[in-house]
């Protein structure tokens, strides 16, 4: 089916083919008869041999042979010589079939089946494998079979590692060998086996993989191994708390719904009808086990025993980077409360890779409960008027900007040295695609390790330039580099109070909500959300976003502007279902309804896992519309929007608008128009 040049067939070729076909047909039908009649004579078995020699893919013939072997074994005494000769014959047939087609699943599995019956001439198997490896060093059947034999014979990982060494030294362009090396090495490193300490071993591996990358920068064989080494260099197994809201040392203002009297423009104000505010914990990797026993809260705010913590993640998952609980307060108890949080108070917070959160981490913030003056006005939220530049002093933002990672505890020296050494090496490859890309990644990694504010952020200009170069150099992957550029841009912007404050405003219309403006920045991807947990109003309009992936952590977000982006469907907005504070959403002038292929369908809650949807009123009354707009239905149903803009999308129109009104009965403003009662 593969690799045959197209040419018109000549009549004599067709005739020869037809003759061969007749012969094969006859063989096949004779075989089938033997198989169905369970005939396992020498003659019948020989027929199947002939068949498999011509067509090793005739899977029923391999099944037949297994039945024949079992039949033979049942009729002879367990004379080892007889048994061995039966198995030897099977191995011979497999070898001959593999010579026809060394990628035949049926043949390889038959061999495994024979070997697992206890018949082994292991030296022979390894020799056979060597032969196939020489024919095609990328034959994954052979590599899989090798793993099977290794398992059977309990060959050591160190010996197998040496084998990959030999293969790589023979020809570095052997991705299969690099892959196997990564499997063996990660196992040995995880065991802390003799001679396999990361700080010694990883630098050696960098040297080894340089041979692959530097000899031919266009050969991909070493790229992914190098990326894995980088991950091993950066990877801190112990989960860490990256940030929280409220953050350590901060002050927040709490109130009931309504307008605050002379609200301070210094602190974040949180208004709640429900009398509770979120407490957000953001870890550097997915963890489970965050609960009221592993996280303790010490405060005079009443009614906060046995809090329920939720992971912000897919429905099925019990692990997440982001965990939220809600602390209650009484809006009439006008007081100042100190709240002390102790994360990891008792063991139980565990990463999805099985590592425990270690040292308990404590942080303290202050909550002022303020009075409200009058009923809230349900005015329409504007994205253009009513904003004050926030003349934020560094110390004001420090009270808002979230924690840095606890890097002091981790053995950073060898990691920093390894990265620095790689940066120096890759400077040499600076004209090639892999050189630029690796350098950009190395510099990003180096930036992540910097805690000294004075030198933070110095590398970002270079990183951004590298991605610009890559967009020109490797235009096929333009969007990949664009996404990475956006990530680097956002890291840069959030790396200092000074750069962040240029984008921060306060919105008068809603008690001086903290507003982050990131519009018109060609952003194709969201990042650095862990540093933006304090944001209540976010303007991402006029960018190139096609998904809200990442925004789910922004639990304070009540207003979001995504107009003039590249959102293709409501399924792309699924992460917003977690943003329960969201009241104002603008998705006007996007591409919703324009594309037939939904690239986020399986990343959101699929209809399969929502069997209750047809039970509620809207589902019952409008099954057709719910089916047609299922993703809009799921997203909008879970939000309590007051204001929504959807104009300028292909999906917009009377039918969709009236559907929206049914799904969101409490909506007050649609596309700028106030809705009647």
């Amino acid at each position: 089916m593969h690799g045959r040049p197209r040419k018109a067939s000549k009549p004599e070729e067709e005739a020869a083919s037809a003759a061969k076909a007749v012969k094969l047909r006859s063989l096949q039908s004779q075989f089938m008869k033997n198989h169905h009649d369970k005939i396992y004579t020498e003659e019948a078995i020989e027929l199947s041999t002939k068949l498999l020699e011509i067509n090793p893919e005739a899977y029923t013939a391999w099944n037949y042979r297994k039945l024949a072997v079992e039949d033979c074994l049942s009729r002879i005494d367990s004379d080892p010589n007889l048994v061995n000769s039966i198995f030897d014959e099977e191995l011979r047939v497999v070898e001959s079939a593999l010579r026809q087609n060394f990628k035949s699943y049926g043949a390889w599995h038959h061999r495994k089946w024979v070997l697992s019956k206890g018949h082994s001439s292991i030296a022979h198997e390894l020799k056979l494998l060597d032969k196939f490896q020489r024919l095609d060093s990328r034959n994954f059947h052979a590599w899989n079979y090798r793993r099977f034999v290794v398992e059977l014979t309990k060959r050591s990982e160190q010996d197998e590692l040496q084998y990959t060494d030999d293969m790589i030294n023979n020809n570095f362009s052997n991705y299969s060998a690099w892959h196997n090396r990564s499997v063996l090495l990660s196992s040995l490193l995880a065991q802390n086996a003799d001679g396999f300490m990361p700080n010694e071993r990883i630098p050696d591996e960098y040297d080894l993989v340089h041979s692959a990358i530097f000899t031919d920068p266009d050969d991909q064989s070493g790229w992914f191994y190098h990326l894995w080494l980088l991950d091993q260099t950066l990877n801190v197994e112990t989960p860490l708390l990256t940030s929280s809201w409220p953050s350590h040392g901060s002050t927040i203002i709490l109130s009931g719904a309504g307008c605050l009297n002379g609200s301070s423009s210094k602190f974040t104000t949180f208004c709640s009808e429900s009398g509770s505010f979120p407490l957000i914990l953001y870890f550097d990797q997915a963890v489970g086990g965050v609960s009221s026993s592993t996280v303790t809260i010490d405060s005079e705010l009443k009614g906060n025993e046995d809090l329920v913590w939720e992971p912000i993640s897919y429905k099925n998952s019990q692990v997440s980077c982001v965990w939220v609980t809600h602390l209650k307060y009484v809006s009439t108890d006008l007081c100042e409360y100190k709240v002390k949080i102790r994360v990891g108070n008792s063991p139980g917070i565990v990463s999805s890779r099985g590592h425990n959160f270690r040292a308990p981490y404590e942080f303290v913030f202050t909550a002022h409960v303020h009075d409200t003056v009058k009923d809230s006005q349900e005015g329409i939220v504007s994205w253009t008027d009513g904003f004050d530049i926030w003349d934020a002093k560094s110390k004001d933002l420090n009270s808002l900007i979230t924690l840095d990672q606890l890097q002091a505890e981790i053995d950073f020296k060898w990691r920093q040295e390894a990265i620095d050494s790689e940066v120096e090496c890759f400077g040499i490859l600076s004209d090639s695609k892999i050189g630029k890309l690796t350098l950009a990644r190395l510099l990003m990694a180096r930036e992540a390790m910097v805690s000294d504010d004075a030198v933070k952020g110095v590398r970002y200009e270079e990183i951004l330039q590298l991605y610009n170069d890559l967009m020109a150099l490797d235009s096929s992957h333009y969007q990949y580099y664009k996404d990475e550029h956006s990530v680097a841009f956002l890291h840069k912007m959030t790396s200092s109070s000074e750069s962040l404050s240029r984008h921060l405003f306060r919105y008068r219309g809603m008690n001086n909500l903290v507003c982050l403006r990131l519009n018109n920045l060609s952003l194709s991807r969201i990042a650095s959300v862990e540093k933006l947990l304090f944001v209540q109003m976010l303007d991402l309009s006029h960018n190139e976003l096609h998904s809200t992936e990442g925004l789910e952590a922004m639990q304070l977000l009540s207003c979001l502007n995504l107009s003039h982006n590249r959102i293709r469907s409501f399924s792309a907005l699924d992460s917003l279902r977690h943003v329960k504070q969201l009241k104002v959403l603008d998705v006007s002038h996007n591409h919703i309804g324009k594309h037939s292929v939904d690239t986020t369908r399986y990343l959101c809650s699929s209809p399969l896992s929502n069997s209750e949807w047809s039970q509620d009123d809207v589902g019952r009354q409008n099954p057709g519309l719910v089916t047609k707009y299922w993703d809009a239905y799921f997203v909008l149903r879970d939000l309590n929007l007051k204001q929504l803009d959807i104009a300028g999308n292909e999906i917009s129109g009377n039918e969709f608008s009236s559907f929206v009104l049914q799904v969101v009965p409490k909506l007050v403003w649609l596309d700028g128009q106030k809705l009647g009662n």
Partner: protein
Amino acid sequence: MADKLVADKHLRYILNLMAEKKKESFESVVMDHLRMNGAYWGLTTLALLDKLGSVSEDEVVSWVMTCQHESGGFAGNTGHDPHVLYTLSAVQILALFDKLNILDVEKVSNYIAGLQNEDGSFSGDIWGEVDTRFSYIAICCLSILKCLDKINVKKAVDYIVSCKNLDGGFGCSPGAESHAGQIFCCVGALAITGNLHRVDKDLLGWWLCERQDYESGGLNGRPEKLPDVCYSWWVLSSLIMIDRVHWIEKAKLVKFILDSQDMDNGGISDRPSYTVDIFHTYFGVAGLSLLEYPGVKTIDPAYALPVHVINRILFTK
């Protein structure tokens, strides 16, 4: 160089294959045992070109049913042994014709569920070959039949995740090298069961997008291999399921697929100027569907069936 999809030629190519005419070439006899797969490839292509009505539904359906074994599984052709590979194709064919109701769903689903092993993996048949392809098949098939609860989904998912490699891809068994075909199977199975959060989308997305060959625009199946039209499906559908398809250059891939057509006789080959076959014809058209090529109906990237067929199944009780 081709600038359009010659759908009519492909239609005729497929109908000829399905008719008795070419059945007696050597190439055809040698593929006899996987006719069920061939039928699925041909019929789904017809459905994507909105020409499913060109075949006799009754003829196809009754032939499919002759391939069912007493165990409940389906064989690749009448008289051959049952295997999950052909069981999925049979169920998919019946789904295309909206004829799932003729199945004894208990029987078929029990056959598949019975092949789940202790560690959550699936065997292809009673002879015990284990491969993540079979995990995908079991999950896809049982999902279509709405019997996913017959297997231990958690264990099935955990087994698939144990086949995840350090490059973000997936192999056929734990420790096996990443390969686009296996990646499609694992990502598809995780998609169907709502477990894509267990995929490192950025890492895998980069590995997948680097399958695109700068020169030809075609996609290969793993590093340092030749581009091949069939990867237009496996790589592309995987990228779509994890929302990273914007990382490849779609127009170039369209061109590669169109250039692999046989403009005179119909059919699509593995690469330009090579021999066409039904396998690559299907993957070429399916790839074009995912690339939103006009005139081709939309295919679902996880179930490999037209979206309207899947919606019909998933949205009804």
